[in-house]
């Protein structure tokens, strides 16, 4: 195996003293035309957090699906506590104590928290009736151990995304698990909630559960993991002791090259004010928001989930009607009643949820890109394919879109390329103000840097850019100025060059 000997002698001795809890031994999995996993060996010790990294398509998900019984390996074996095991279904894996916490929230919104926690294993009595009292008592106990601030009787559909994630985790604790796989668990959590999650992971470690932790976020991996394994193109590129390595080394293993330094921001203080918001208020969502965005400037908006960030963006785009306040574009006051009006005023919004709000997944890249301006690519109600193709060609090139072609369906692209299609769609409307809501959510490290470079480049070309993000490194890295939102109010406006993380955390916590 190409495993570098980076363990210290002491640690190596300790690891050897404990028998591995779980071993995935030389797993190979082929799909038609691709080798998804090539001789992958991966092990987890009891009470250890073993992080699994890799770009999208590196084979992480396939490996975990093999582990959870969704896929059968073509070669190789799985050993749990020294014994070979075979799974034909997720249920079998679950029954021996391997639990996967899914990346996509797989909850039933119409059902209560307790019913979701016990989904598929509702406690039942005579005539198959549900033992409700049992159900709620057990769920209540699990929620207490997690410190969840919501009741077991609450409907999941009423919970925030972050709280839903907690339900997902609660679900894993029903089965006294031996191995828990966290797949991108913090994708939608705020820093405070991450803290709770890490405590939970600490608790699991203490009870000798083995943990596989999949994440794109380097800072988390270095906080939470004991060892890490990097996959690239279906092969293990290295298994390292986390304490003995650093981000650069790991990134290099992941993408096979080193990331070039981020384009440094140039002062954009001299551009004309493109967007000027004064005293914007919308019910209980946010109050008295004032800020400006200049041409050539990237303004970041940071705050906890529910602080009103997305709502401000939606108001600017005409999806919400403010009660008070004024919006000026290029100096003249405007009323924006609906998105078409916003578009004609030169605004563009790349929405928070790319798959639900940004793309029609079943449509081709080209059709997705021309969607926001069918007026200009059609004459008399007839679409002109050549005009559509022109848009695609222009922006596929400008954004370095890696798609098999204009007719490739959006659903088949990686997250980074999907996001480029959405950005291309809006750029083609020739906007002067671009709003991006969580532009790199769920996108791998390599593509993330690319999107960041792209945002900077767009600003340099004269666009006024407003970026909303819940990732602090992103907001601090990409913005010229940072607005901090706390409970629907503007808690501060900072120059990114002199802003420290501590100061920003204080601002968004209302300190």
């Amino acid at each position, binding site marked *: 195996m190409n495993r570098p000997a980076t363990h210290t002698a002491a640690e190596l001795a300790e690891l050897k003293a404990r028998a591995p809890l779980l071993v995935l031994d030389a797993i190979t999995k082929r799909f038609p035309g691709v080798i998804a996993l090539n001789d992958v060996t991966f092990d987890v010790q009891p009470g250890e957090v073993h992080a699994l990294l890799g770009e999208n398509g590196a084979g992480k998900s396939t490996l975990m699906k093999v582990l959870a019984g969704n896929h059968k390996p073509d070669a190789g074996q799985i050993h749990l506590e020294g014994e070979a095991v075979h799974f034909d279904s*997720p249920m079998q894996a679950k029954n021996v104590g391997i639990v996967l916490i899914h990346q996509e929230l*797989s909850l039933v*919104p*119409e059902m209560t928290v307790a*019913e979701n926690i016990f*989904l598929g*294993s*509702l406690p039942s009595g005579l005539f198959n*009736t549900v033992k409700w009292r049992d159900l709620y008592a057990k769920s209540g106990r699990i929620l207490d151990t997690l410190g969840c601030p919501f009741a077991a009787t609450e409907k999941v*559909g009423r919970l925030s995304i972050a709280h839903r994630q907690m339900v997902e985790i609660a679900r894993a604790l029903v089965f006294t698990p031996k191995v828990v796989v966290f797949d991108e668990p913090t994708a939608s959590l705020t820093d405070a909630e991450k803290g709770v999650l890490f405590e939970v992971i600490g608790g699991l470690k203490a009870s000798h559960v083995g943990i596989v932790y999949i994440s794109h976020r380097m800072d988390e991996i270095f906080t939470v993991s004991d060892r890490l394994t990097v996959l690239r193109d279906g092969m293990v590129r290295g298994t390292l002791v986390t304490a003995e390595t650093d981000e650069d080394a790991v990134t290099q293993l992941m993408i096979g090259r080193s990331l070039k330094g981020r384009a440094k921001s140039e002062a954009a203080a001299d551009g004309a004010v493109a967007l000027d918001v004064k005293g914007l208020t919308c019910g209980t969502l946010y109050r008295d928001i004032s800020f400006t965005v200049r041409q050539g400037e990237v303004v970041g908006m940071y705050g906890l989930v529910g602080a009103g960030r997305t709502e401000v963006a939606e108001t600017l785009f005409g999806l919400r009607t403010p009660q008070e306040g004024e919006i000026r574009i290029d100096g003249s006051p405007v009323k924006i009643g609906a998105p078409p009006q916003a578009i004609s005023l030169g605004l563009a919004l790349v929405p928070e949820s790319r798959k639900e709000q940004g793309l029609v997944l079943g449509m081709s890249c080209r059709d997705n890109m021309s969607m926001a301006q069918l007026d200009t690519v059609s004459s008399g109600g007839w679409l002109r394919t050549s005009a559509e193709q022109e848009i695609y060609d222009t922006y596929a090139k400008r954004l370095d879109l890696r798609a098999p072609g204009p007719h490739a369906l959006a659903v088949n692209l990686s997250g980074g390329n999907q996001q480029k299609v959405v950005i291309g769609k809006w750029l083609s409307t020739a906007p002067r103000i671009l709003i991006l809501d969580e532009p790199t959510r769920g996108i791998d490290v390599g593509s993330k840097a690319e999107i960041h470079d792209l945002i900077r480049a767009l600003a340099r070309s004269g666009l006024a850019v407003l970026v909303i993000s819940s990732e602090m490194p992103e907001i601090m890295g990409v913005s010229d100025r940072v607005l901090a939102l706390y409970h629907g109010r503007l808690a501060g406006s900072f120059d990114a060059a002199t802003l420290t993380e501590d100061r920003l955390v204080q601002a968004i916590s209302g300190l």
Partner: protein
Amino acid sequence: MANALSRLSRFSVVPPIWLFTAACAIFFSLTTENFAEIGNIQNILQQTSTIGLIALGMTVVMINGNIDLSVGAVVALAASLAVGLQGEIGMLAAVGVGLMSGIALGFMNGMIVWKTGVDAFIVTLGAMIGVRGLVFVYTEEQSFFAMDFAYSDFGMSSVAGLPTLAWVFLGFTVLMHWLMTSTVHGRNAYAVGGNREAAINAGIPVGRHMVINFMIVGFFAALAGITLSTQMGASTPNLGREYELWTITAVVLGGTKLTGGTGSIIGTLGGVLAIGILRNGMNLMQVPAFYVLVILGVILIAVLFIDRQVNAVGKEDVRI
């Protein structure tokens, strides 16, 4: 106003359709002389029992995220078998065969939907056409008359002041309500309809629940066919035409979503009664039959529109 409505919908245990049903009942009690009479109420219950029985099964299938368009054809098939076979194998055995035919067709629908992955709408649309064909093959386009007078007597009988068929309907309503709210099967049906991926990941035997639910609706369609033929003492090959549409209308009025995951038997009961009361009340007011259809169509859309408004406001509240 909208806010008050949404709060109302959140805290009321009774599905909103019941407000509408009650309003209709009050309206017709005040505007017509005969609506509130015992005899008329018995009449409504008897008339609604046919659609009502099918709607019980349809609710379950729709909560599960599917639909069954073949129920009308199954009504005719079960009725024809139960009446037509009486002379040869006796009344009870014939009724048994009729019920079994519904369950068997439900099983078939369910298995095809499960194993082929073809949408339930298409599968049962095919079944609707095919089964109707089978009915014509079997009956040779003839109507059958019940040989055994006990058969039609049953359809006209009453127990403790209510028509027997009304009791059958209400009894099964209670049973199905219990099934959907208190049993693992019922809750899993909601889970499958609400988020199929989640249900599969949670190890719920999705296919099995689906097949069982198709068998349930098949049973109820057959039962409805049989109870309907006991009322007439006969069966005709065209029995039950458009029943699938009336059933779906009642179920949707009752708050069950076509997309699955939401709905209740209590709501369906409200929806069934709403249609029954409207038809009966407008009949008493001597509204011409064709206008009744126009009004029912408008009401269906209006009620769902209001429901959507109320729920949309509710969702917005939660986002804060």
